[in-house]
């Protein structure tokens, strides 16, 4: 189903990468938020792969922000990479492109 969201986590060096696929909206963002917060517990650096995310709304942005805030409290890092044009546009509209650490590729995200 087009509206479904899928995500999985994997370890890459000293980071955990969460691969997200689908659309992040009010129906799917709670599950994503929960999964990201859980993944954050096990690492100092969480890289979120948004290459296959075709849509994100304000609830999705809020979920990412919550995870970011949680990370900052425990001096951890959140890195977004592979942003599609649509996702980048939403971050620009919400003036959050400078709040998140954003990279184009996974390699750049893991080496940053």
């Amino acid at each position, binding site marked *: 189903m087009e509206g479904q969201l899928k995500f999985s986590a994997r370890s890459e060096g000293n980071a955990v990468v969460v691969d997200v696929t689908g659309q992040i*909206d*009010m*129906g799917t963002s709670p599950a994503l938020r929960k999964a990201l917060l859980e993944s954050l517990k096990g690492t100092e650096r969480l890289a979120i792969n948004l290459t296959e995310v075709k849509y994100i*709304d304000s*609830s999705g942005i809020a979920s990412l922000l919550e995870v970011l805030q949680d990370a900052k409290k425990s001096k951890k890092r959140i890195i977004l990479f592979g942003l599609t044009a649509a996702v980048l546009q939403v971050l620009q*509209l919400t003036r959050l492109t400078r709040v998140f650490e954003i990279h184009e590729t996974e390699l750049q995200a893991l080496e940053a």
Partner: protein
Amino acid sequence: MPSHPRFLPVVRATVDELCGTYGLSKEECVGVRLAVDEALANVIRHAYKNRHDQAIEFKCIVNDQQMEFTLIDQGEPPDLTKICAGPMDDVALSGRGTHLIKAVMDEMSYTQVSEGNQLKLVKRLHALKAIADGGNPGIVPDSK
């Protein structure tokens, strides 16, 4: 449409196709799709307090000058004093939806009508490149 989030992707896909058909740029399509989705999500979240068994009347009318989206619900009326009440704070976890709608759409208005709470969103078209039968502007029937 029912006030269930699982119908949001359906509306988004329809709006996206419609915007493309009427010649909006890719960026405009993304924006309008987002604005309509945010508006519907607000109705589900605030007017219907996350009840998923209510009805939202969603209508789109297009002419050579604009796309007009109308949402009507029978839930709690919006508190207009709280909508876009302050600047979009960098780290606020909520309250962005209406700011996004205002950033994208050319007009946004709330009215009380006999059917309930009505929200109207308007996007002006710069150049209509409609693919329509007989050259007539497309009018999408009401859908619930």
